[in-house]
Each structure stands twice: as C-alpha cells, then as structure tokens.
C-alpha cells in the first residue's frame, strides 16, 4: 500500500516517512563498514574494503578514506560514485571558506554545509538522495578533535564513536560497551580493529581488506591526516592479536 509513496523523494508517506531516504539507507547497509573513534589526541577512522580482487590495480588511492582539507578527512559507506560527488563538493566548500576567511573551515560548519547539500535532494528537484553515509574526522582550534556522522537525509551529529555501513548496529553496540572517555589514540586503533574484526562478514582479516587512517596533531602543532600503509596495518593486526589467518577457517 505504501508503494505509491515511494517514487518521489518530495512526498511524505501517510506515516510521515520519506521512503526514498530510507531506501538510500538500505543501500548503505549493504556496503563495506566504516568505524570512527574519537580519542584525546586524535581521531581514528577504519574502513572495510568490500572490493578485493587480485585483478584490481592497486594504487596509492584509497577506497574508503578521503582527505577533504588539511585538517578534515572522511570515511564513506555506500555508493562510491555518489560519494565522489559529495567529497568534491566538500573539498570545494572548504577551500571557498579558506579563501574568504583565510583560515581553515571549522569541522562542524563543513559537515553542516555538506549536509545542507544532501538535504536539498530530499526536498526539491525531484532527484534521488545520495546513497552515502559519512564519518567526518577533523580538528579545529575551537573544539579540538571531532567526529561527525551524516546520512542521506542530511542529518548529522557529533559522536565519540560511530559506525556506518554493514553491521553498523552490531558495531555501534560493541563500541558503546568498550569505549572509555579518556581513550588514547593507540587504544582507539586497537578498539577499532577489534570491533571491525568482530563485525566483518569475511572470514579472514588481512591488511588488504582494511584501510586505517588517523587525524592527529604533530609535535609542531599542525594537524596531520595519515593513512597507514598496508605493512603497518599488518603489524598492528598482529600486535593486537586480531588477525585471523585464512588457513584457520574451515
């Protein structure tokens, strides 16, 4: 019966729902998961790479993590082509702010600005919403390190730890149990790896299936966004005892 309210984004259903937005969130629920954790001295983002094939041309580009500006990065879950458009929009918005005010754009303002764009696609134009959820990690001088999660409806909020993509509810409840307020960046990495390994569908966890990035302050006081190399990810997996070698599965 509710099918007749599906096809246009600009209509509410009788129950007060926007079906297109909900269907967009369904699409994200099938995509590779991503987890973000806020710590005292940085923000950790970790993503599960869904597309792994020997034939894939490995390049230095990342699949899940993207730099928006020197002080903000994001992890994506959902339709990659939609994500590319939004990431480009976010990058241009950040540069426009810097051009006007000659200082980095505050993280929340950047998230809000991008979410305003996403909201537009749920209210007018007759175009479908973007099928992407984001986890934004950044630092600014007003509020320090921050983590934000946004979804296709254009809603966003700040989180201490959040998960998007496949099995995000399981990941979120695990994070709720294990997260402590005064967690350090290293502990956050460990927690993220642990939670991801438990909620990932695949049987073995290797550095090829993961992307790990951190936003932190260098000793000289500059914000740095660093993606861990596959080698360091492997080392971390071994160190925290999280890796499950493929041979063990039956």
């Amino acid at each position, binding site marked *: 019966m509710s099918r007749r309210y599906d096809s246009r984004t600009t209509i509410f259903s009788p129950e007060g729902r926007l079906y297109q937005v909900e269907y967009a969130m369904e699409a994200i629920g099938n995509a590779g998961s991503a987890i973000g954790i806020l710590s005292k001295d940085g923000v950790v983002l970790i993503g599960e790479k869904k597309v792994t094939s020997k034939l894939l041309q490995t390049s230095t580009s990342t699949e899940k993590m993207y730099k928006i*500006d020197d002080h903000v990065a994001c992890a994506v879950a959902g339709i990659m082509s939609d994500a590319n458009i939004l990431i480009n929009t976010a990058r241009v918005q950040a540069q426009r702010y810097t051009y006007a005010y000659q200082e980095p754009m505050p993280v929340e303002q950047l998230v809000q600005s991008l979410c305003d764009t996403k909201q537009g696609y749920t209210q007018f134009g007759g175009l479908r919403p973007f099928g992407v959820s984001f986890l934004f990690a950044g630092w600014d001088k007003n509020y320090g390190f921050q983590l934000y999660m946004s979804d296709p409806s254009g809603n966003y909020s700040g989180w201490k730890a959040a998960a998007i993509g496949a099995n995000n509810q399981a990941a979120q409840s695990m994070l709720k149990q294990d997260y402590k307020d005064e967690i350090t960046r290293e502990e956050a990495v460990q927690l993220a790896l642990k939670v991801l390994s438990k909620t990932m569908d695949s049987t073995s966890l290797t550095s090829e299936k993961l992307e790990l990035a951190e936003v932190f302050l260098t000793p000289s006081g500059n914000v740095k966004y660093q993606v861990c190399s596959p080698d360091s990810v492997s080392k971390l997996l071994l160190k925290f005892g999280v890796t499950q070698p493929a041979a063990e599965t039956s």
Partner: protein
Amino acid sequence: MQIFEYNGSALVAMVGKNCFAIASDRRLGVQLQTIATDFQRISKIHDRLFFGLSGLATDAQTLYQRLVFRHKLYQLREERDMKPETFANLVSAILYEKRFGPYFCQPVIAGLGDEDKPFICTMDSIGAKELAKDFVVAGTASESLYGACESMFKEDMEPEELFETVSQALLSSVDRDCLSGWGGHVYVVTPTEVKERILKGRMD
C-alpha cells in the same frame, strides 16, 4: 599615478645548477610613503614551487589566495603537487580570465620540475608567459634588475654562488629605485633543502 608603481616592488628569479633562487625586496609603500619594511612578496606553493608577485599589493594578495585555492583542490584530486610548468599555465589562464579588467600584478614563478630541473618564468598582467633559461625579473626596479642580472649571471652556478649573485643583483638594482628596497628576502632552493635568508641593504 601609475597603478603598477603604487606599492613598489622588486622580484628576481635565477637558475643555477640543479637549483634556483628567487628574491624580492621588502618594502611596501603607498606612493612615496613607506608603510611596511617586512612585506612578503614570495610565497611557497609547495616545497619545490615558489611564487612571487610584484605590482599592486592587494591584487597580489588576492591572486595568491585564488591560486592556493586552486592548488589545494588539485593536490586533493590528483594526490600530488603541481609541476611548475603546469602551475605557470594555471596562473596564465587565471590572469587571462580578467583580460578586460586585469589584476595589476606581474608574477614570477620558480620551481623544480621533473628530474630536479629548475624552471623559472614570468608573465605580464594578462598572462603572457615568458620562459627563460637564466633569469626573470619583475617590479618597479625591473630595468635595473635586467642590467644587473645580465652582467652578473653565469651558467650552472652552485647554490652558494647563486645566492651571492642574486643578492648583489637585487640590492644594487633596488638602490637605484626609490619605490623598492628596505632589504631583501632570498630563497635558494635545491632538491634537498630550502634556504631562506634576509638581506640588509640600504634601509631606504
């Protein structure tokens, strides 16, 4: 009142052996009055690319900010720094966009390209590029700079000798120009390091 001579400036870039030097004066004036003696005319785009702007200071600042905007987006999308040749083309295109209401600046671009080959170029205020193998000059002291560089320049100078040559050329030229001076600011860039030095000349 000449718009290009409103603030006063002197810029020079010179090629050495696997290195380059880019230098500017430090005076910012409003016609005959000196406003600042520590004005930065040369900015770093990335570790191997420096960009100096002579002419009207407000246009120089705005143009620089626009180029940072474009370069930042390029870096994010291409995941690498812009080559000097590419950057020069970008500056030229941006200047030509304002063909009938131009920025009153003359840029000097200096960088290390592929295989650490030094690249320098200048252009006029509407983007006509001038590539040179030896040196490029810009600013109110440009005529003196042309003469000084032409006589002092030698090919394949090492960084230390290049620094001396650029400094002498700059200081002697700005001394003959009332609108530029108050010391010098020299960057000598090699593939491994960037040496920034302040010169003290006739402080007028």
